């Protein structure tokens, strides 16, 4: 198994850092899948995470100037590593003005992802900062856990309001209740509701628009445009998701499966992030 890559462009480096920071805010540990064309940050839904799962896909070509990978075997040309994204985030934090950043898989005291940044310095010889991030290699037999999630058969799909506004609303609501109901309909209306013994608060969003998924999508089934599909979720999961977002995505949408799951999709130019929050009773 070999992996070597190099990033030279400062813009790409900044963008990559922002993506990793977002991932780091969402999870303590996650799985990094490396394939010849893409990088995936995957979190599989487990009870320990409260059932949330995440899938973040990056197109390698948009970030790295050099990228070489030799997977586990020729027919499975992939590497799966479990690591703490917080470590990568910390390593990248101070390398923002680096001339180049090399990321490679090494074996030191344990398998590591080594990040070596070449920093500009006062002398002719540049400074080199090396970070060794310990990783766990995931054996092939467990790879099925980390496959791309299939799009659920959703009832309503709607574009999200500006994430900043949504974050402010959810932050305030978090103080009042532990559970939040997200509901939306096909007329571009979305409500965020909380209800406690003393108070119930609802925030209404209008004119959001519904993404056209095409004829085979569930929306083609006759469905009352005004009927709301709703799901009750743990507010902290939603808040964590919104708090981590650092860049405004080009497209942000939400698919709701009535009383089952909320599927949030954020699309940037070269990164896509999907986040699944299951319903709570």
């Amino acid at each position, binding site marked *: 198994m070999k992996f070597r890559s190099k990033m030279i462009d400062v813009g790409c480096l900044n963008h990559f850092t922002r993506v990793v920071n977002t991932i780091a805010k969402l999870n303590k540990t996650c799985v990094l899948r490396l394939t010849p064309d893409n990088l995936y940050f995957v979190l599989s839904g487990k009870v320990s995470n409260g059932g949330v799962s995440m899938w973040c896909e990056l197109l390698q070509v948009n970030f790295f100037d050099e990228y070489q990978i030799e997977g586990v075997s020729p027919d499975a040309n992939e590497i799966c590593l479990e690591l703490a994204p917080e*470590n990568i985030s*910390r*390593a990248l934090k*101070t390398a923002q003005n680096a001339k180049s950043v090399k990321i490679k898989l090494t074996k*030191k*005291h*344990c398998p*590591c992802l080594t990040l070596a940044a070449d920093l500009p*310095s*006062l*002398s*002719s*010889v540049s*400074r*080199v*900062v*090396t*970070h*060794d*991030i*310990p990783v766990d290699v995931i054996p092939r037999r467990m790879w099925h856990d980390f496959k791309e999630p299939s799009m659920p058969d959703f009832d309503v799909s709607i574009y999200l309001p500006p994430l900043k506004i949504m974050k402010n609303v959810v932050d305030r609501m978090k103080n009042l209740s532990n559970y939040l109901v997200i509901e939306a309909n096909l007329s571009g209306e979305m409500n965020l509701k909380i209800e406690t013994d003393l108070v119930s608060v609802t925030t209404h969003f209008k004119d959001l628009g519904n993404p056209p998924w095409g004829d085979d999508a569930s929306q083609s089934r006759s469905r009352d445009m005004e009927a709301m599909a709703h799901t009750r979720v743990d507010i902290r999961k939603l808040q964590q998701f919104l708090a981590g977002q650092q860049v405004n995505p080009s497209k942000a949408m939400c698919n709701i499966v009535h009383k089952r799951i909320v599927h949030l999709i954020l699309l940037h130019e070269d990164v896509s992030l999907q986040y699944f929050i299951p319903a709570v009773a």
Partner: protein
Amino acid sequence: MKCAIEGSNVKAFGKAVHALSRIGEDLWLDPLEKGLALRAVNSAHSAYACFLFSPLFFQLYSLHPGTQSPGTPIKCKLAMKSVLPLFRCLATIERNVDRCEISISTEESRVICQFYCRHGITKTHNLSYQESEALQAVFPTNLCPNVLKAQAKLLGDIVRHFPASQEEITLAVSPVRVILKNYYEEESDRAKVMYTEMSLHPDEFDYFQVGVDSHITFCLKELRGLLSFAESHSLPVRVHFGSSGKPVSFSLDDMPLTATVVLATLDEDASAPPSQTAPSQIGPVHRCVGAPSVPTSPRGTLECGGGEKEPEEENLHVAPQGGPVPGEERVLSSQASPVFSPALYLRKLLELPKPPPAAIVTAPGAARSSHTQHGGRGGVCLAPPHGTSPDACTDYADRAHGDRACLCHVQDGRQLYASHPSYCQGSRAPVWCPVRAEPRCQSVGVTQPGMCQRH
């Protein structure tokens, strides 16, 4: 003692208190002739810091104000918990405080700290103190084989790569590279932690002298206070150290003030856990019993009457004549002080016992073998490829040599130096002169810098 600090110096004073609070729980106040010394030491005696404010720093500085009878000014120690809150919010101090007066009142056994603020507000704080002997670490920076000088910004940039919670850090130097890496002790954590290593070229340092390749591990947390002080005042920091196990000293000086932090380093050879064990202690934290101010005019002090002489001699006490204790640990501390006392230094040199071979040859392992190659002459080399005599020495590649002084071999327990590079037949990195903050040379017989041909 009474002193008054004006304007922006109050903030600098506050920042010094912050830096000291990182080290220990108590603050030692030591009013001296040469200024007010604030010192702190940690409970394990593995970290010591001293900030010395010269009288120029103060608007008013008086050891015996008004009616107080002349005599030794009181030396005391205060709880850091009571001093730090006074200077906690530096931004507020900068905005509001015009003047700060500190006085020690023996009648009331209190230190009185008064802040004269805007709008005519005066805040008076009475802090009770504990009378105590002065605190002074014994550490000979001028005998350290390795010296680095760097701008505060460089050091700040370096430590920024390490997480704020990083406890200990290892500094490894060789003539071609300086490496800093984080250090974790417990084996159990090793698999999970992220290792960071930073490698720099010696050119980045303002001054770089490596007499012996070494790597030292010390506590970064305790140093951060001094580094942030240096960064806020944009001052260069000097680092003096030797091989692992010997203390490392970080010092800076700006005209009105000098600051020093001395940290113990992990002794790689000792099997005992780090920092707290005896071998890596700073050395006896020496209490000057009733000593007057540390000698500013050395000749004067040396000549003074019997009563005072004893404590001074105690100060100058050097390694016991017998025993394997390396001479350096017991020699008079210079505290990286800008005051140079050549006579004092000379006395020290003359009193130095003939060092056991292992003492000065500091590259562990390799040194012992290189020494045995030298045979006769009693000369001790600092590292191969020195020969048995300066003539045989083939190491001229020392980048630090050139128009700077150098020091040559030790003979008969005394170090022979050339008084001028052209007399020098060997090559070794120069010694750091604390007076001019530049390399200097010494020669036997030169009693003051003026006579030295390199000044």
